[in-house]
């Protein structure tokens, strides 16, 4: 891999706007989302429920619900052969060759994301059937290999199991095997461990990190848990109400969180002595309804330090190096610091 290829992002989302049609009205779920993910790296999208993380990931997969559409922006994906395509405008036939084979996805709900009527081997093998020329025996061998890779014991017999015969953790391993069987360059993981208990969660995260190294893939990792971000991410984009409010390399973000919302989220990281399952409400209030977005900073109604200026719209702007933040005050502090 040449130096330029490594530094050039696999995925670059620019100015993405996604809207959903309702009965009579329309709501904008993503407003000007922009993130970049380098080859082999992990970008975490973090934010409370309803902030637009899943919509972002489904846009990349071209799997938005029927009532949703990309209204503006580009989703640039660098294919294995080096060519760049805009996934927001790719036709279905060409998209199908990428989906599953080059970009794969694992979902939050291991209980309902596998088809109950097919064996797990069948469901993993189907990926090979769709994207490779392997014959039935070779597919079978490869499925067993994958099940072993995700550390499922007795892989050869487990491949004949139906999803309901496996535990949640095992099913998520199956989902990972399914997603990775074609060795995708980009894996999208939408809250892959949220539904699992803590021990299983740690095992799955370990597994994902190991497989990422072995397969050299990039991961778009979606979570609402800052603790998981710390364990998994190279870069972080914090989302609030359909927009990225802060983006930075993980160390920078944890050392100098500059958006009040990010600071609120960081206060929720479990510490020793505090049970991990306990979710603290970081900031009073909740994400505004998409139909009732405040005109200025969307976080203003909940922001502990909001000022008059916060009624003006605010955009993501560089703070220092590759640290970007969308907050009037963060930039004001910087100005003060620079001048004082």
């Amino acid at each position, binding site marked *: 891999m040449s130096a330029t290829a490594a530094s050039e992002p696999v995925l670059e989302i620019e100015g993405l706007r996604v809207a959903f049609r309702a009965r009579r009205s329309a709501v904008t779920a993503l407003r000007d989302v922009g993130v970049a993910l380098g080859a082999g790296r992990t970008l975490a999208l973090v934010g409370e429920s309803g902030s637009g993380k899943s919509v972002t990931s489904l846009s990349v997969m071209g799997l938005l619900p029927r009532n949703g559409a990309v209204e503006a922006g580009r989703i640039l994906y660098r294919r294995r052969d080096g060519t760049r395509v805009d996934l927001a405008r790719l036709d279905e036939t060409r998209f*199908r060759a990428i989906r*599953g084979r080059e970009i794969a996805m694992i*979902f939050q709900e291991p209980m309902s994301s596998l*088809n*109950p*009527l097919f064996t797990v081997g069948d469901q993993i093998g*189907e990926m090979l059937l769709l994207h490779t020329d392997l014959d039935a025996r070779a597919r079978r061998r490869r499925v067993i290999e994958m099940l072993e890779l995700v550390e499922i014991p007795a892989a050869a017999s487990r491949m004949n199991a*139906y999803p309901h015969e496996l535990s949640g953790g095992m099913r998520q391993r199956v989902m990972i095997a399914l997603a990775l069987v074609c060795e995708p360059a980009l894996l999208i993981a939408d809250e892959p461990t949220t539904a699992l208990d803590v021990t299983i969660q740690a095992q799955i995260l370990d597994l994902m990190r190991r497989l990422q190294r072995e397969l050299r893939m990039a991961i778009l990792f979606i979570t609402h848990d800052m603790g998981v971000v710390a364990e998994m991410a190279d870069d972080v984009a914090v989302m609030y109400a359909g927009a990225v409010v802060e983006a930075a390399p993980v160390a920078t973000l944890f050392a100098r969180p500059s958006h009040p919302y990010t600071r609120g989220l960081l206060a929720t990281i479990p510490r020793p002595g505090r049970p991990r399952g306990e979710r603290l409400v970081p900031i009073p209030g909740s994400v505004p309804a998409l139909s009732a977005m405040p005109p200025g900073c969307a976080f203003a109604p909940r922001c502990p330090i909001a000022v008059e200026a916060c009624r003006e719209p605010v955009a993501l702007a560089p703070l220092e190096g590759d640290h970007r933040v969308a907050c009037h005050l963060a930039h004001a502090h910087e100005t003060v610091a620079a001048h004082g």
Partner: protein
Amino acid sequence: MTSYLVRRIVGMVVVILLVLTIAFVIVRLAPGDPAALMLGPEATPQDAVELRARLGLDRPILVQYLTFAGNALRGDLGTSIFFNRPVTEVLAGRAEPTIFLALMSLAIALVIATPIGIWAAYRRGSWLDQGAISTAMLAASVPSFWTGLMLQRWLATELGWFPAAGYGGPDADFLERMRHLILPAIVLGIVNSALILRFTRASMLDILGEDYIRTARSKGMPERRVVLRHALKNAAIPIITIVGLTFALLVSGAVVTERVFNIPGLGNLVVSAVLRRDYPVIQGTLIVVASLYVLINLLTDLLYLVVDKRVRY
């Protein structure tokens, strides 16, 4: 699994015993002396006494019941008063047209309803979906005798494509007899397709919203495969139930259509038997149809086992 089967079969026996009891009681509850009723106004008291003896009506009620139930369980449903032949024989002679009519109309209903139901669910909200739903509602609300008479007039009388009525007479070979069933099968097929269509659509709609359908799409497969492999197999489970019930209803309830097309089937037999007060035939039909119903129900549940490995009885 085995214990489930045993439980189900015990359940079946209980239901059938219940039906036997009901069939027995109904005749006793009919106002007046059954023998006199059966014989009609011209009969002499002597006739009535003879018939009562023949039917065992002069014995204690419990003895009557046990005899009746015991005979029925051994496959002896008594003797038809009108035909003066064993009821089982009479029923067997009328079963062929009814069963083939049921099978043909079910096939027609499935051919019409499943593809349209699947497509309507896939394109929910489109003009095709709305058109399919309204047409189905219309088809279900038009009385089948009217559809029957219209089709009879158009396809049989005017165009001469099919025989207008009957079952081909005593010498007709099997194909000729089946030819007589096509038109009534179309009528019943249309009526029943409405129900199956709505069921198919509803259960496909449910399934298409499932997480595993999104997973299937994320694998990069054509929509055809998503719908026909991943969704349909799951949607098939409720569809099987309604198809089984429809079949059971068709076997027991094609009365109007058999009447309109003068098909000598069970529906027609039952109507005549009621008019003639041929109680043994009425009882026999009730018992056979109810048993069939219970049996089809069991078969449907067993089909679940084959389709869905999660089902453990």
